[in-house]
């Protein structure tokens, strides 16, 4: 068989002389199996020749094709990264907002905290003892935070009609720490009275009502009362300032 292939090779490569070539071609015409062998050999030879010649270029083309695919994949990865970056940015934004809310909630003070910050005992300039010292005693107890004792003393003190509103305000102040409902009742009573000659007591009573609302975290009423208070033209400057600052510190929601 190897000899046959050598002869076919010579025939296909032009290595047979004229006579040899004619004889071989006559054999091919006569013998179909030889013709098939020659045809197959030619196909194998040409295929190997073409593929061998294209092999290097083919490798270059495949590299190019795969570079394209990789570029495509890199594009997908870039898109994926971009998408991820966007997701991360959104997540970071949401986290920041949440953190801010949490922080703000932490910064925002509770009603009792705000109440403690803003509430101050009223000044009691007219509490001169005429009834065995209970008025002065009540003032001292109030100052020292002995509210139950102060209530007891100040209620006795209230028997002296000349000390009405000041003492009532002091008593209401003491009740702010002991009995919210009683404090509210007293403060609203002061607010209802005509006391053109003592507007600061009225304003102070309203202020205590506001602070009671703060303590109870009744924010809607607190806001409404603060707005009303801040509209008063003759509101003492110090109280106006306190009212404005308190308003800014109220919880946002």
């Amino acid at each position: 068989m190897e000899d046959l292939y050598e002869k076919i090779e010579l025939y296909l490569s032009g290595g047979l002389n004229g006579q040899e070539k004619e004889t071989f071609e006559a054999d091919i015409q006569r013998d179909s199996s030889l013709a098939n062998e020659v045809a197959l050999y030619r196909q194998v030879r040409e295929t190997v020749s073409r593929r061998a010649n294209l092999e290097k270029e083919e490798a270059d083309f495949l590299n190019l094709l795969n570079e394209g695919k990789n570029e495509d994949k890199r594009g997908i990865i870039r898109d994926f990264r971009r998408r991820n970056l966007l997701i991360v940015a959104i997540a970071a934004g949401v986290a920041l907002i949440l953190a801010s809310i949490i922080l703000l909630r932490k910064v925002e003070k509770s009603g009792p905290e705000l109440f403690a910050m803003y509430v101050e005992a009223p000044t009691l300039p007219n509490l001169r003892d005429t009834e065995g010292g209970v008025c002065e005693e009540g003032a001292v107890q109030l100052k020292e935070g002995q509210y139950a004792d102060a209530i007891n003393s100040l209620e006795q003190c209230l028997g002296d009609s000349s000390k009405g509103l000041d003492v009532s305000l002091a008593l209401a102040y003491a009740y702010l720490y002991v009995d919210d409902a009683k404090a509210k009742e007293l403060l609203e009573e002061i607010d209802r009275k005509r006391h053109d000659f003592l507007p600061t007591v009225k304003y102070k009573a309203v202020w205590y009502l506001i602070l009671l609302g703060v303590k109870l975290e009744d924010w809607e009423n607190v806001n409404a009362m603060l707005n009303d208070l801040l509209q008063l033209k003759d509101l003492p400057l110090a109280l106006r300032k306190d009212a404005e600052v308190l308003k800014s510190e109220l919880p946002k929601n």
Partner: protein
Amino acid sequence: MPHPDQRYIQALRENNPKLIQEINQNFRPAIIALCKKNSGNHQEGEDLFQEALLAIWRRVREQGIELHVPFGAYLYRVAKNKWINILKQKARREVTFEDLSGYEGVEGDSEALERLELIERQEALIWERFKELSDRCQEILKGAWSQTFSSMESMADSLGVSYGYLRKKKSECTARLMKLVKESHSFQHLKNG
């Protein structure tokens, strides 16, 4: 007059990186989808795309192509036939094929394409068998048949062997390759249509 997509054929002829990337982006998904829709997976789809495009690239190199249909339709046709043959080889029976390409009827001269593809399959098989030979045999047959050398004597010099050894070895390698090709069941099948 060639189809406007002839530019892709030109790109394959010139190995134009930009347009080859465009081919990748525009046509690869359809070939992968074809494969996946017909019992294949994504990787087989990738391989099919590469094989089909490589087949067209070879045609462009060896005989040139004048495109009268969209490039996508032509590529799809080549890929589809390749995939049907792969499925047939796997199943050893006729296969049904689901075609969602929208390219049916715009595939050009089917008969001519089928003849071409039959030859390509035969050649692919010959090349596969060639690759089964030893490295030495491959080197010798490539050298002898690809006209790298002006003569067997110069080839023997280049390989550092005697002319007699080279001649004998070449005969053995040729006989071995012919035997491998003839014994191939697939090749017999291809020959008989």
